[in-house]
């Protein structure tokens, strides 16, 4: 699959104008081009501060000393190289909806990963489900030229068997590569809170993309049905009438509110996404207002 298929050139060019921002950026060992809130060694001036014993005297601003006869140390924005982790829920429930949730997640992940690559960040992709021992993942790539690798890898991902959530293989790498974690999931399942909890507790900046298709938000059932779960084939008998649908909406709203509160408590950015929202709108309108992109 080619880049053109995933995104248009103009879209990619527009993406290049965007940059990731996060209130909380986790420091990594390697310096990168990511602006961080920590003051450090970079060419971008941040602030002055009075010289204190032990400071690198090379950073004393002699011009200031000449004007003010006081020693000031120049502080620079510390430029860090951070890892952008794209955690993608590839459970069968994601392969659903029109437009398809999984595809939407892939495109969103690709867009964000591309922004990361353009900004010389490391981008890592981690699928969360696997039929095997380890969940498929893409080793961190860096630089704009790796975009094709990223895109190809994302497109090669496919929904896996439902029971194989490899939680440890998802969480462990994050312990080494602190940075930004983007989680793309429909959050169907009770295990998701635990996972988000663990990921956020590692000091990463976490953004949770709650991706849902319209029929999950507003079911259009009518009559008696036996609803079959795609993941575990579990059946739920439902007589879909006005009352039932009302009940469902109530439950749904409560569920979303619960996630919102859960994320807020852990400083996780909770971004509910309906697949009907155009990806451009998401990238250029929704995410900047959410404080994810600039």
């Amino acid at each position, binding site marked *: 699959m080619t880049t053109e298929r995933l995104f248009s050139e103009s879209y990619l060019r527009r993406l290049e104008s965007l940059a990731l921002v996060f209130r909380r950026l986790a420091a990594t060992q390697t310096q990168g081009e990511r602006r961080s809130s920590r003051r450090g060694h970079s060419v971008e001036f941040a602030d002055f501060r009075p010289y204190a014993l032990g400071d690198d005297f090379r950073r004393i601003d002699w011009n200031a000393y000449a004007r003010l006869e006081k020693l000031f140390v120049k502080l620079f924005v510390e430029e860090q190289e951070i890892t952008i982790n794209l955690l993608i829920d590839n459970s*069968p429930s994601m392969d659903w909806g029109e437009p398809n949730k999984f595809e939407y997640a892939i495109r969103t992940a690709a867009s964000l990963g591309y922004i990361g690559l353009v900004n010389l960040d490391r981008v890592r992709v981690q699928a969360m489900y696997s039929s095997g021992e380890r969940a498929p993942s893409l080793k961190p790539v860096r630089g704009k030229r790796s975009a094709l690798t990223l895109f190809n890898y994302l497109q090669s991902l496919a929904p896996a068997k439902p029971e194989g959530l490899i939680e440890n293989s998802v969480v462990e790498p994050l312990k080494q590569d602190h940075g930004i974690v983007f989680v793309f999931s429909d959050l169907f*399942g009770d295990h998701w809170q635990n996972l988000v909890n663990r990921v956020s507790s590692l000091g990463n900046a976490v953004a949770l993309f709650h991706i849902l298709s319209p029929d999950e938000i507003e079911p259009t059932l009518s009559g008696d*049905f036996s609803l*079959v779960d*795609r993941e575990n084939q579990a059946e739920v008998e439902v007589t879909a009438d006005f009352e039932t649908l009302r009940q469902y909406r109530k*439950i749904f709203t409560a569920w979303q509110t619960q996630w919102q509160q859960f994320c807020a408590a852990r400083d996780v950015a909770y971004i509910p996404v309906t697949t009907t929202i155009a990806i451009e709108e998401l990238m250029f309108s929704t995410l900047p207002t959410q404080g994810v992109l600039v």
Partner: protein
Amino acid sequence: MSFLNVAGFGLALLLPLIVLMYLLKLRRDERPVSSTYLWRRMVRDVQANVPWQRLQRNILLILQLLFLGALILAIARPASQSAEILNQSLILVIDTSASMAANDVEPSRIEKAKQTAFDLVKSLSSNARVTVIAAGIRPRTLVSLNTDRRAVNQAISQIRAEPGESDMASALQIAAAITRRQQDALTVMLSDGNVEMPQFSSLPGTFRFVPIGASNKNQAVQMLSLQTNPADLSLTAFAQVANYSREAVARRLGFFADGALISTADLDIPPGSEQSALVSGVISTTQVIEARLLESETGIDFLALDDRAFAVNRQTGTIKTVLVSQGNLFLETAFSLIPSLDLLVINPGDPIDAQVELLVFDGNIPAGEIPAGANILFIAPPVSTEFFTVTGKLDLPIPVKAEPVNPLVEHVDLSGVNILDAVKITPPEWAMPLIEDRSSTPQARDPLLFVGEKEGRRIAVLAFELSRSDLPLQVAFPILISNLMTWLTPGSLNLAPAEIQPGAPINLAGFAPSEVAANSIIRIIRPDGSRVEIDPAIHESVFNETDQLGLYSISTDNEDIQQFAVNLFSPQESQIAPTRTVHLTGAESSPVEMSVITTNREWWRLIALLAVILLSIEWLVYHRATLSELLQRLLPARSRTGAHLK
């Protein structure tokens, strides 16, 4: 509550079928969803109201079962017996025959029938029309299609039992004629069932028979006859008593001669059979013999009407008749057939008894003085007399009745009568010709027989000798002689029959006076003492108010009293055992039986409506999701428009 179509419940077999189909259908449509995570949560939530939820799950099944149940119930046609009559037209046919006078039910059958009729009328809806037909000897329609309840009740209260048989056939014909014009008519026959049902094709509408009566205990004087002993003219009365009960009874029969008890007879009558009693040697002057069942302790008798019978002795009062003849076998034979004639045959010229009442001159004329007051019959007078003039002789006259035809010769057939010759008589002024000679000139035909009254006598003149014609060999002869004798002996012969059936008409033509007594009036005293006066000049001389049992007396101004009896000799009426069933030969030809008058108020319409409602509810429930969606779309639309309007 009863069911008119119990077979309809057979459809209940469909109920398990629905359940079965439901069980088969219970497999719901499978619909894959991305995840049942939220749905499971919801179901968990809803599980709190489980019983209702279970019920709701099967609400379609319950509704369908209810619908089918209601449908089956409607098909079974449930009906509640209602005292209220829902028909729009009620035709009451009340039997007023003699047996309805029986008092085996309090106070009597006819009163009971009337009470039932009142009740029926009361239970009618106010706009229903009522017809009351009294089925007596002559059925009468008392009120017809009347909505005025007061008039109807008045008509019913007028009804009395009549002492005869009822003409139920005619009554029901009238009812049928009315029901044919009426929709939804109910014909109710109130009777003890001792009636002859008609054989007509159909009685439209509904027919109900309300049997009245409870007992069959009755004994009746079934026959009473009188015979004269030729030897001493004494009378012998013969009576027959029938027992219609199912038990043997001992009854005492009393014979009364002119009101005085002359004899009794103790009769032990087995059930359903008869016993006879005889009393002989009753003096010949007795006018009326009555046979009466006397009060009894053993035999219970609910019908009093048939316990008495009267017989009128008509053998009294012989008429002294003298036949002046040289011997006429025909005449003597004809006279001997009239028992009341006390006939004496003498030769012409012999002295005539002054007490004689009727003189017959056969081929001669009176030689001497004719006794005063005696009526005279001349047969072929040879010469003129003081009453008429003989002018010659007629050869081979052809007899025809004179116009207008006199009742005396009305039934006398002259067509085959041949006459050799006759005396030509110029009719006097008083004469009324009965038979004329057709061969003479039409303007002045010669009379062959004429009658008339002169100087208080009745005179009849026959212009030909019996031996010179074949009249005596004809059937017409005894009739003619009898008629002439009747006319010549007024008040002395049996002008009225001694006994008739109740309600039968009696012809009083014989009492109709001749022109002499044109202003006389016939008076009849009925058994209850009521008087009826008949003016023959105005009314038909037919008396038909013979609807009372007992003795009737007829009298005119100048005639003696004559009596006749009306007796109920009707086994059909005396057999008072009530019938529970009557067979009405109608289109269905099935026996119509109804012990209690009720109408079925049917409920199937209501239940069918319920079924339709249930079906509608079922449909709504089935499509509730679609409907709720529709509602949902509709409501925001409405609120939007509302906002827009603001």
